[in-house]
């Protein structure tokens, strides 16, 4: 009984345990429902899987199922970020415990009952619990926002602190977290109220299906705004989290945090007003995106310089003593922090650049049938979501204690596998730029193969990581015990970069 209690404490009360549970559940959900996706349908796996699991897939309800599926995954990702934030940002132990407990019950309730409702038969109690779980997640967000309040005296930084602060000692990073949390709460309400009120809760649609509607309704605009800003805020939160992981500090930290705060406020404002001022909302969103992207570039510059310094220090060298080759080797010596920030830069190539190109060439895209445009849109945000997932994975693998060769294999396979997949999906989703319909199949086959192999490699790494931690839980004196005893989320490489 004591052994079970200790493991329960680890899995549901410690930051690393909570993150492990959430990642494991997302993995299971991805594998379970990934069986319904295109390639699985092509191979006939989908039909067997549906029969075997007893899923009820009414074609009328596909959009609703997908929306619930996305929400359950997104809620678990939000929970992971909240666990990281409560583990990284100063707050009382009581606040930390309350927030983590509430969001855990919330996302689990939503996930279990939401998926049950969506895929295994309708019982409106399940749907009610799906909504109730989301309400708990929202309430946890309110508690988090209160806990992050940056103007409390005890959270002020001393004048000589290397971390971003005002002359009065206001912690700018904490303010950035706070602004992000407020924006997220408002944006959640924005989607929820619009969906419940204008859509009466039932007239569902996927945003990519509405992109060519000549005049979009208030509901359509609000929902499209909601999903864009939520994904953006998840990315912003993760950038701030990664900043803590690499001990982001110095003047560059101050500039980045100012960019992040201003950018978050401007983007969120732009999205919130899209219902009433659609014509200028996009300009505001683009203006706000610039400082946020610059903040991520500054984080990357800082991280890469730090990684070079750490890598060289491990060989007993200083940056002045090393040439380009040694610096490059030092930068790449640890795939985890390098990879997390590399993925942020890679995103600019496969998401931002493609998005800007298509926006500039919109008249060309609108020459294509809607189905082609839809593929570019779904490719675009699947890649963004995938990049966010790999960054979380790289961070968690470090926290989980991957060391040595396993760490390098894991890190590089996740980076190379996912990036090959994202590049392939980008090619696939923009294929009409390079190839006609009748000649497309070799390109389609090649890109799908690369994407599948790349993602499979990432999933295998994820599976191995989960299996390792599962086996560990059966050990009386495993890593879990050490993590329970030492709940701190360590800065990567701190033993060298003192």
């Amino acid at each position: 009984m004591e052994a079970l209690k200790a493991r329960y404490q680890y899995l549901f009360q410690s930051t690393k345990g909570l993150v492990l549970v959430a990642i494991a559940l997302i993995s299971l959900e991805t594998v379970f429902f990934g069986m319904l996706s295109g390639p699985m349908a092509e191979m006939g796996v989908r039909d067997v899987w549906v029969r075997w699991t007893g899923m009820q897939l009414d074609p009328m309800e596909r959009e609703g199922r997908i929306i619930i599926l996305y929400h359950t995954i997104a809620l678990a990702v939000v929970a992971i970020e909240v666990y990281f934030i409560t583990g990284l940002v100063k707050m009382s132990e009581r606040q930390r415990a309350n927030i983590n407990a509430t969001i855990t019950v919330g996302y689990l309730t939503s996930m279990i009952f939401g998926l049950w409702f969506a895929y295994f038969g309708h019982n409106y109690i399940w749907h009610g619990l799906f909504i109730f779980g989301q309400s708990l997640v929202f309430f946890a967000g309110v508690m988090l926002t209160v806990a992050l309040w940056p103007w409390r005296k005890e959270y002020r930084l001393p004048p000589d602190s290397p971390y971003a602060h005002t002359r009065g000692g206001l912690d700018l990073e904490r303010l950035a977290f706070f602004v992000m949390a407020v924006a997220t709460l408002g944006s959640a309400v924005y989607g929820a109220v619009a969906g419940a009120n204008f859509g009466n809760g039932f007239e569902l649609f996927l945003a990519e299906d509405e992109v060519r509607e000549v005049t979009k309704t208030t509901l359509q605009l609000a929902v499209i705004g909601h999903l864009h800003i939520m994904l953006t805020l998840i990315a912003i939160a993760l950038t701030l989290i990664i900043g803590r992981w690499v001990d982001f500090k110095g003047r560059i930290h101050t500039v980045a945090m100012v960019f992040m705060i201003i950018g978050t406020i401007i983007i969120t404002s732009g999205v919130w007003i899209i219902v009433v001022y659609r014509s200028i909302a996009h300009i505001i969103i683009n203006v706000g995106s610039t400082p946020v992207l610059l903040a991520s570039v500054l984080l990357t510059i800082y991280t890469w310089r730090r990684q070079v310094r750490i890598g060289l220090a491990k060989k007993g060298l200083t940056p002045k003593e090393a040439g380009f080759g040694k610096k490059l080797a030092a930068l790449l010596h640890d795939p985890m922090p390098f990879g997390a920030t590399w993925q942020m830069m890679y995103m600019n190539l496969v998401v931002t650049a493609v998005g800007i190109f298509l926006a500039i060439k919109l008249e060309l895209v609108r020459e294509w049938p809607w189905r082609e445009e839809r593929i570019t849109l779904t490719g675009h945000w699947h890649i963004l979501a995938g990049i966010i997932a790999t960054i979380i994975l790289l961070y968690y693998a470090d926290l989980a204690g991957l060391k040595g060769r396993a760490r390098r294999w894991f890190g590089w396979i996740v980076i190379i596998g996912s990036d090959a997949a994202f590049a392939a999906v980008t090619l696939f989703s923009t294929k009409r730029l390079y190839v006609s319909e009748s000649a497309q199949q070799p390109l389609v086959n090649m890109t799908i193969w690369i994407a599948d192999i790349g993602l499979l490699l990432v999933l295998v790494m994820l599976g191995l990581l989960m299996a390792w931690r599962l086996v560990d839980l059966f050990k009386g004196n495993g890593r879990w015990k050490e993590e329970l005893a030492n709940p701190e989320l360590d800065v990567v490489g701190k033993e060298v970069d003192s």
Partner: protein
Amino acid sequence: MTRLHFHSGKMILFGLLVLLLVAGCNAQPATTEPPPVFDTGIDPNAWAQVPAGSFFMGLHNHEKTIDYDFEMMVTDVTNEQFAAFLNDAIADGSITLGEEGVLGYYPGDKFSGYKHEKEIKAGDWLLFPVDHPDARIQKEGDTFVVKPGYENHPATMVTWFGAWAYCRYYGWRLPLEEEWEKAARGPDGRAFPWGNDVDKSNANYYKSHDPFERPNTVGDTTPVGFYNGKIYNGFQTMNSPSPYGLYDMAGNVWQWTGGVYEKTHLRYLKGGSFMDYAYNLRSWTRNSATPEYFSIAVGFRCVR
């Protein structure tokens, strides 16, 4: 130890590159062999009556009423029918042969100058491209002829203007979206013309493994009325007409509809095609394209 680390990284990179190359080597040239020939027994000259009455439209099943009876072609217009139209209409001067293809007059759309709206002016517009390698109808001398084996397949590579002109030439018209959806779903709100489930015996969709799918191609059209319960070279189909007896209202080729809407030049297509996953075959799915667009996966049928 350092050498070993570097070696490991190189091995990973090398392995991944090999995997990617192997994946890339899957590409094979598309075949140009003629398709298998099947007589489906469904008459492409037949019409089915759709009675006046209410029906459910769209994903959210909004009830609508069409207060008149109309008739719709039982199948898509075939290559044979469209080639005959091209030959007859060019001969009598209704349409002309230009450098880029067959042209026909269209009186133009009302233009509002709305965001992303393109002006469709009165004038000659492309109906059908000539000498396009993907077209199943080719010009031989002064006559349009169908590539052997494709006579009873739906006419593709026809622009909206071409579909509009075809129907008009015979005194018919393109169906409005609501007419099309009622004809496909009937009055009971089903997802597909034959019911609520779909499998490869119902319709031609992406990777549905019909006898016309060839390795490393995007797929192909099936003859009109193919999914009628017959067995073709061992491929068992289910009889899958709509409640009013229309075939191919899901899959095979997207079908142009005739509605012209304010503030947009886009035209709308229904039904899904051999290039789409099955969920796109649901009767309310709405594709759109410019009226000049033509594709190997787009056809049409008329109403009267």
